[in-house]
């Protein structure tokens, strides 16, 4: 673990940028149509619970990384195996987000550029930043947060001013019933993006005031949940259900509807900025966490030594992960959620928390 500290505000910013990051671009909970924003808000509620679980574990071991405390909880061998599995999980998700990012970028702006080049450029910038450590990541995140905030506010004003919002598109609410809504929440929005906050279990030990972790995390989840729900609601009300279901990137389609004074139009650059900033933060955090986890597990003193190799692995993984975009999406919806996200984000942390509870109670009794 490097000797660096981040403030509660920086943690807040990182969580917001991470959760909003790529989720903003993707169609979230498209099955429930008009109620997507409800599914996101429900997912946020679930996200609170999950965050409290990770936070509970952090309370037991506030100064060491999860890769270290799983060894205390499960014993050296099992702990190391589980730690290693988590590192693989972080790297795999980094690669997945990178693939999403690259495909999106190529689809809407650079049709003729090879995927490898687009991904490689981003990963170079990420490796450069990550090598400098968590402090620099957090500070860069702070500045990008301001930039993203300005983009979001000005974008919102532009969309409202251009008069394309039709709230009638939001009705009927709960068309498919409460059951479908709950099902979508439990199978999708809970994990992406809220359950992904499990990476912050690796970053919480860097916090300078540990008592502020809970408040910062929950506030961050609230902000990102509300933002995502608002964006989903705007997308539906601007595009309508039929256009939305056919649109690959709903946010892009919404932005393209902006037309003001015959001059402010085709603001694709908004989407592009959001995409790159979000992608950078999300992949950056995954990469950083994979690096410190590996360094911790294999007792490597200078964790920045690992940034090039792990960056390269993530880059290659993002290319070989699927042969085309539809396969990639299909995998994501059918396999990843159930067999990777669910156990890694929910089951294992819950079990760890239970074990930690009993272990520490025993200690206290003695």
């Amino acid at each position: 673990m490097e000797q660096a500290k981040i403030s509660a505000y920086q943690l807040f910013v990182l969580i917001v940028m991470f959760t909003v990051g790529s989720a903003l671009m993707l169609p979230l909970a498209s099955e429930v149509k008009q109620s997507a924003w409800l599914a996101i808000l429900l997912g946020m509620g679930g996200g609170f619970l999950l965050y409290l679980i990770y936070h509970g574990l952090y309370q037991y071991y506030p100064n060491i990384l999860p890769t270290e405390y799983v060894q205390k909880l499960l014993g050296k061998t099992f702990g190391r195996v589980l730690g290693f599995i988590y590192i693989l999980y972080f790297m795999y998700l980094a690669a997945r987000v990178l693939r999403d990012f690259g495909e999106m970028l190529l689809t809407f702006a650079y049709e003729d550029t090879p995927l490898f080049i687009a991904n490689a450029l981003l990963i170079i910038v990420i490796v450069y930043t990550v090598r400098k450590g968590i402090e620099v990541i957090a500070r860069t995140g702070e500045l990008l947060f301001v930039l993203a905030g300005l983009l979001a506010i000005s974008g919102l004003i532009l969309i409202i001013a251009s008069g394309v919002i039709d709230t009638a598109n939001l009705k009927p609410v709960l068309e498919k019933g409460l059951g479908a809504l709950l099902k979508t929440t439990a199978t999708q929005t809970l994990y992406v993006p809220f359950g992904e906050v499990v990476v912050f279990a690796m970053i919480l030990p860097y916090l300078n005031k540990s008592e502020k972790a809970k408040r910062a995390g929950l506030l961050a989840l609230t902000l990102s949940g509300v933002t995502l729900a608002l964006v989903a609601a705007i997308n539906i009300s601007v595009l309508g259900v039929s256009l939305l279901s056919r649109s690959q990137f709903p946010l892009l389609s919404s932005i393209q509807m902006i037309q003001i004074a015959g001059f402010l139009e085709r603001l694709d650059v908004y989407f592009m900025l959001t995409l790159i900033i979000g992608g950078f933060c999300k992949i950056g955090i995954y990469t950083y966490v994979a690096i410190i986890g590996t360094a911790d597990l294999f007792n490597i003193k200078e964790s920045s030594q690992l940034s090039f190799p792990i960056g390269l692995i993530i880059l290659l993984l993002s290319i070989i992960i699927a042969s085309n975009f539809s396969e990639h999406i299909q995998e994501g919806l059918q396999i990843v959620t159930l067999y990777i996200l669910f156990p890694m984000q929910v089951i294992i942390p819950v079990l760890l928390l239970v074990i930690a509870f009993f272990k520490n109670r025993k200690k206290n009794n003695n």
Partner: protein
Amino acid sequence: MPSFFKRHKRKKIDKVHNNKKEQTKKEDSKENSSQNAAGPLNRSLAANLEVIKQKTGSSPDVIIRRLMVGGGPPVEIAIGYVEGLVEEQSVNDFLIKSILNNDDIEVKNGEEILNKIEKDIIALGSIERVNDWEKLFQSMLSGKTIILIDGSSEAISANTRGGEKRSILEPSTQNTIRGSRESFTEAIGTNIALVRRIINNPNLWIEPRKLGTITQTDVSVMYINGIVKDEIVEEVRKRLDNIKLDSILESGYIEQMIQDQTMTTFPTIFHTERPDMVAGNLLEGRVAIFINGTPFVLLAPAVFIQFFQTPEDYYIRSDIATATRFLRVITFFISLMGPAIYVAATTFHQEMIPTQFLLIIAAQRDVVPFPAFVEALIMEVTFEILREAGIRMPKIIGPTISIVGALVIGQASVQAGIVSPAMVIVVSITAIASFATPSFPMAISIRLIRFLFMLCAATFGFYGIVLAFITLLAHLCGLRSFGVPYMSPLTPFIPENAGDTIFRRPWWDLRERPRLIGSKNTVRKGNNQKPEPPAAREMSSRKGDGDEI
């Protein structure tokens, strides 16, 4: 997190360093031994004068005047000084004249005459005794006058510093509309006095030292005791003491030797030629480094946002100051990315340009044989050449270059179809914007990075620009100046100090000094300083409802 590669390099560097250190030690000891050979002064005046002659190579500007003093057996004394470094008037009036007027003193030997001269005769404020050669030469060459007496192994050095100096003029690089018109000169004494005149407080402390093994340049560290952070002063001392250079000719020498990080184009130490700016920064807890021979004073630690602030921001109303600061941030972005955005938009993202505008640009670019990037590069390089030539040109032919520049860039190149008019506009705006940045080193660093941005834009369009921008942010966030994060108080965000960044809160509300820089005494003023109009005159006032009438 120090990186893999850096660590290895550092080892090598350390090795080299150690070797060098050993070498310099050897050299030092050699030098010392040669100087030690001179050692303490002789008792005989003739021998002493011979040594002076030999050491200075009989340079004609070293003036030695021999006098006879004493009513008993006359004792020979000699007055030595360097012509041009001393104020001849005071040497003549207060030394030579007063000694000659008192030549009937009755003394027996050299020691007594020394005492007599020191206590009774010299009419100057600052004198001291010297008894070894090193000190003697040092004081003589820094403008003091030496009095050697036959039969005494001690000499008197009297402060007669003076000589020709440039007078105090208006600042030539950091101009303001409102505020002091003084700027520093090349003389360190004058410069220090200029700041002392502003801050009349005994806590304004000055630490002198000599740097440069050959030049022996006067360098002074100035800070306000009680406001400055002790660690920062200690760090400045340490870094200055580590300097092993033969010469210090300008503050830039020291700046480059004491900065935190060398792998950056951004200035991490501030320099100024305005005394009011030095005073303002001292009051924020910074340390000033004065160097003899240059009107530029160094200020450390420096933060990024400081390079976009002028002293005038603090003199004018806060709303106006905030507006101008916003303007400067905009010019920062224009001068960084102006041409890059134009290149990206015309090369990759034509669909983002409004149709009418796109048609105009397309019509203009129709005759231009180059891609937008090459076009931009030609214009930017031409502009940089003009700018550089403008500095070097003799002032008399200055107008020539502006005419040639305007004609070549503005008209002929467009008519010849080498560049499009739109590009001329973009490059001109960028050029003007880059000069709106108050700090020259910051502006030039931005200009350099602009070319990188153009390259990124030409290869990957907006994607390249945004990635370059994120890299730039990460780079800036990783910089430090004397341990203070370069981007503070923007990030790490310090709410108490955010009122003096892109905004400038009014003085009655600006309570805190920068936290990471000065820590001891953070509060600048008392509570409730907001000026209020007299209550009775206001319509909404509670008290005045007709009571007074």
